[in-house]
C-alpha cells in the first residue's frame, strides 16, 4: 500500500518522542544534574533525552582530552614555582603550525645556556590543539589542558606568555591522574637507576 513506508517512518519518529517521556518517568529526577545521570545519558543503550544541560551540567571530558597546551611547574616547599621546562626546544620544533616560541636563558657570565626558559609564548590563534608538543616533551613539562571555557571579547592577549601558561603540577595530576601516576613511576625508576649508576660509579672510583 502506498504510504505504508511513510507511516512507518512517522511511527519511528513518534516512538522516539514517546521514549523521551518513558525514560524520564523511569529514571526520575536522577537523570539530570547528577554525575550518574550524565554518564547514563552517554551510554550505548541511551534512550530518551540526550541533551547535556550546559552550563548547569557539563559533559565530563576524558583524560586524554586536549585543548590548549600549558606548562607544568613543581611547587617548592616555600611556594616557589619551579618550571619543569628546560627550554630544549623540542616542542617548538615539533609544533606543526609553529605557534610556540621560546627564548632560552643564557648565563650572564659564561654565556652558556641555562636549562630554563626566559620567555615562552604560544599563539593560541595559531595553535591547532594537536598535542604533539605534549607527546614528545621528554621532561613532561608541557601538557594539554582541559579548560575550554576561554571565549573572550578581544584577542589582544591571545599570545599566551609564561605567566598565563604555567600551572601547578597538582592541577596536572588532577586532570590527568592516570598519566600522571604512570609518569611519576617512570620518573622514580629513572632516578633510582641514576642513583644506582652514581653509586656504582663512586664505588668504582673509590675502588
Amino acid at each position, binding site marked *: 500500500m502506498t504510504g505504508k513506508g511513510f507511516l512507518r517512518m512517522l511511527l519511528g519518529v513518534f516512538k522516539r518522542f514517546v521514549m523521551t517521556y518513558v525514560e524520564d518517568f523511569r529514571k526520575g529526577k536522577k537523570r539530570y544534574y547528577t554525575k550518574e545521570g550524565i554518564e547514563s545519558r552517554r551510554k550505548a543503550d541511551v534512550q530518551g533525552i540526550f541533551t547535556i544541560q550546559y552550563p548547569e551540567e557539563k559533559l565530563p571530558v576524558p583524560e586524554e582530552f586536549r585543548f590548549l597546551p600549558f606548562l607544568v611547574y613543581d611547587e617548592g616547599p616555600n611556594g616557589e614555582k619551579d618550571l619543569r621546562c628546560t627550554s630544549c626546544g623540542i616542542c617548538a620544533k615539533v609544533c606543526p*603550525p609553529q605557534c610556540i616560541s621560546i627564548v632560552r636563558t643564557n648565563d650572564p657570565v659564561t654565556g652558556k645556556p641555562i636549562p630554563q626558559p626566559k620567555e615562552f609564548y604560544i599563539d593560541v590563534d*595559531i595553535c*591547532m590543539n594537536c598535542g604533539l608538543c605534549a607527546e614528545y616533551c621528554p621532561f613532561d613539562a608541557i601538557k594539554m589542558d582541559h579548560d575550554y571555557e576561554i571565549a573572550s571579547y578581544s584577542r589582544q592577549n591571545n599570545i599566551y606568555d609564561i605567566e598565563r601558561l604555567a600551572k601547578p603540577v597538582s592541577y596536572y595530576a588532577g586532570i590527568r591522574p592516570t598519566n600522571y601516576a604512570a609518569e611519576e613511576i617512570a620518573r622514580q625508576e629513572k632516578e633510582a637507576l641514576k642513583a644506582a649508576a652514581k653509586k656504582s660509579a663512586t664505588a668504582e672510583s673509590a675502588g
Partner: protein
Amino acid sequence: MSDDSLQSSNYDIPPEMQGTVSITSLDKVYAWSRKNSMWPMMFGLACCAIEMVVLAASRFDIARFGMEVMRPSPRQSDFLIVSGTVTKKMVPQIVRLYNQMPEPKYVVAMGACASGGGPFKEGYSVVSGIDKFIPVDVYIPGCPPTPQALMNGLIALTKKVDKERIKTSKWYSKGAEAAVPVPVLGPDLMDPRKYALIYEQTHRPIEPEIPAETEQKEG
C-alpha cells in the same frame, strides 16, 4: 530619570512624540528578550561548521538559548558565526553577507582560523583573522572548539547583548553605520581601505633584504 536625559542627543525622538515616549527600565526588558532569541545565520565554512551543526543537535541543543532558528538568509539573522578558515576567495562573500544583516548584528569568530588565521595562517590563500574585515564581538579559541566551548562563547555573546542599553549602544545612535567595504579579488586579495598603501608599496623600489632581516631579529 529626568526629561532632559531623555532628550539627549543619543537618540532621535521625533518632535511630535517628545514627552510621550520614554525609555527607562523597559530597556532592560528589551535587552533580556533580545538576548533570549538570538538567531544565528546558517553559514558553515569549514571544520568548525560541523561542531556548529552538532551544537544544534540533540546533545547540546542551542534551542535552550533560543538560538535554534538557524536562518539561511542574512536578512533574518542576528549574528554570524564565522565557523572556520576564511579564505581570500570567500572574504568578499562574507563581508557582503555581513553588510546584508540587519542591525543590531554580531559576529562570533569560532576557532583559531576565524580569530587569527589558525594553523593555515602561513599559507597564501587564507586571511589572518576575519576581524581584519568585519568587527568581531566574541572570539572562541580552539581548533576546533568543542561544542561546549562554543556554547561558552555564545553565552558570552548573550551577556554582551544583555548589557547593551539603547542609550549607549551604537546600534541606536544617530546615523546609519556605513557598510563595510567589500574586498576585491585581484592578483591577491584587495581591501579597498588599503588601496593607497598597495599603490605606495608596489610603486616603490624594493628595499634590499638585509636590513629587513636584522630588524626582524631585533623585533
